[in-house]
């Protein structure tokens, strides 16, 4: 049986699809992943976290934040975590941060060399729109430079999630932005899932800023914590 392939028709359709896909919010072809909060996005250049570069988040409670940011790329995400982590990622809970669990691939690296290799290869390949590296080690300048270079080829969003103690060591890094993430009291109203205090420690613009951010898990969006709400913490017993 001979199959005639109408190459012309197919390439025409591919072009059309490409045009349609360009409208879809995806990190590919876009310059940045936004928080969706104008105050924050305007403070960063380009608006939001630049695609094709590395962003470092340190803090023990940044898992949800990083997941939400990776989820905003709208594509496949690789999460490179430690093997035998006593507190591994829990997809049913992670799904609430807007990250599509069906598009998540978890790579469990046994040691640092493997973790860096996996992250670098995933960032280089362009098969993922975001790659998250969980680092329980000091990411040296060389490491971060290598990761940064591999990201530049593929325009992938690179996120590093490092333990708080590690970041305090303050090693030089090639990351485009560095953030410190600390937990923040959630407002009493039901609904918001998580609050963080985000300190932008370093950016190319040189401005350090602090925001108190809340993630609305029902609406899949970030918002700034209303200034009136963050007075002195009140002890509240729901039960």
């Amino acid at each position, binding site marked *: 049986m001979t199959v005639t392939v109408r190459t012309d028709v*197919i390439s025409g*359709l*591919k072009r059309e*699809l490409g045009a349609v*896909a360009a409208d879809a919010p995806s990190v590919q072809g876009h310059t940045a992943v936004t928080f969706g909060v104008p105050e924050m996005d305007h403070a960063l250049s380009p608006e939001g976290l630049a695609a094709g570069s590395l962003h470092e988040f340190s803090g*023990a*409670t940044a*898992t*949800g*934040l990083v*997941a939400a940011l990776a989820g905003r790329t709208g594509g496949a995400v690789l999460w490179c975590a430690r*093997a035998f*982590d*006593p*507190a*591994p*990622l*829990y*997809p*049913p*809970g*992670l*799904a*609430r*941060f807007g990250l599509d*669990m*069906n598009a*998540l*691939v*978890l*790579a*469990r*690296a*046994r040691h640092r060399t*493997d973790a860096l*290799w*996996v992250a670098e*290869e*995933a960032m280089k*390949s*362009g*098969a993922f729109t975001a790659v998250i590296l969980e680092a329980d080690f000091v990411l040296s300048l060389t490491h971060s430079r290598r990761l940064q270079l591999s990201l530049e080829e593929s325009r992938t969003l690179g996120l590093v999630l490092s333990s708080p103690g590690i970041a305090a060591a303050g090693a030089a890094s090639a990351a485009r932005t560095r953030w410190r993430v*600390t*937990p*923040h*009291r*959630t407002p*009493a109203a039901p609904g918001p*899932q*998580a*609050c*963080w*205090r985000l300190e932008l420690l370093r950016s190319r613009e040189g401005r350090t800023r602090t925001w108190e951010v809340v*993630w609305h898990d029902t609406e899949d969006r970030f918002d700034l914590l209303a200034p009136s709400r963050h007075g002195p*913490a009140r*002890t*509240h*017993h*729901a*039960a």
Partner: protein
Amino acid sequence: MDRLARTMRHDWRPGPCVIVVETGNRVLVAGVNDDAAEAGIAPGMTLADARTLEPALTTHPSDPRADAKFLSRLARWCTRFTPLIALDGPDSLILNVTGCARLFRGEDNLMHEIAERLPGLGVHARIALADTGGTASALARCGENGAIATPGRTRDALRDLPVEGLRLGGDVCATLKRLGLDRIGDLFPLPSSAIAKRFGRTSYERLARALGAAPEAFDYLTFSPPYVARMGFPEPIGTTEDVAAALDMLTARLCTRLAREGRGCRRLTFSIERVDGTTQTIVAGTSAPVAEPAHLTRLIAEHLDELDAGFGIERTELTMPVTEPRAPATLTLTDGAVSTGLAALLDRLGNRIGFDHVLSFAPADSHIPERAVMAEAAAHAAPSHHVWPDAHRPARLLTHPEPLSGMSETEFLWKGVPHTIARREGPERITAEWWWDDPAWRSGPRDYWCVEDVDGRRFWIYRTRPQAPGLPARWFLHGFFA
């Protein structure tokens, strides 16, 4: 036409040893080794008789399937002598060496070579060469080992052999012997119609074929050549670039064949042979049949640095021990590049950190937190569109819940550090599944709370029922939100 038949028997271990087969309620000896044969044990005896002759007898049950496998491997090995090899019963091979003998400088040398090489494989075989397959088979079974029948004198070669040589089956042989027809030669004067009538058509046909009076048909085995490509170098090579170039060429060669045959590689081995005679090997696997040279080369190339060239590499070899039929590629409207890129990447990650460490997730039908999610190797997982249940669950779940102490309305201690409770939500009661016995859940139902401390950290903690009346309830930390 020259033919050669061999009967073979696999030799086992030192000491008298027999292979036994159970027929009805008797255990019969099916095969013996040299030591057992010396003790007077012969195939066909009952095991009880054999044990009387030699009490220190080791026995092995017969394994016809393994025997058949071994025989087909041996047949493959024999392709060095002739491409035409047929199975002859469960224990022998017929090699059609027509035209091949001259490659070995004559039939004598060919027989000599076979007889010399087989013991090296641990195979004790009886071999014979004759004009027809039937005669060779009879000679090998009942004649002198290594016998070569004079061309054109098949009748003479067969004349003095016992009738068992024709492989007629026990009852036919018994009938022939009762009639005094002990030797194959005794059948010659009988009219063929009488033989067919009295001893069955098979007997007549076997005899006619052995004598060359009827055509012999053989079901020759076909061997698909293994996926192996080799490259030797006139001057030893040493640099990674040279080895990579050799690898590229070898992969391209095998992939062309894979593409033509519609197959894909699942496992591949690249080995180098150094000047000093040592070999080094790189092994890689893929999650799906692959025939793209770039994909396969990359899996190996990543490990080229691990090879030590020493004083130089003389030979390289690429083998694909496992190949599978490949589904024809489907034309997709969206460019397939992204998905194949992902598959290739997952293969590479899997080869480095293990396929069971590159995971994708699916929701499972359970309300036990530990069992609500299934992880499977991402490389083998089909694209999924699962709907994840909307439950209030933590982003990280401790593999082993950690006990909390000093639990009160306002405070708890985790790892000795006090956390002041600012807010809590709950409880959510989760009961163990009675059909699933999980030791961790033997303490009964758990009441889960989401607790936020004054710093804003949110914990998922639970309380188990007191183990005995009067004892306090125990609290555990099971996960972290955010």
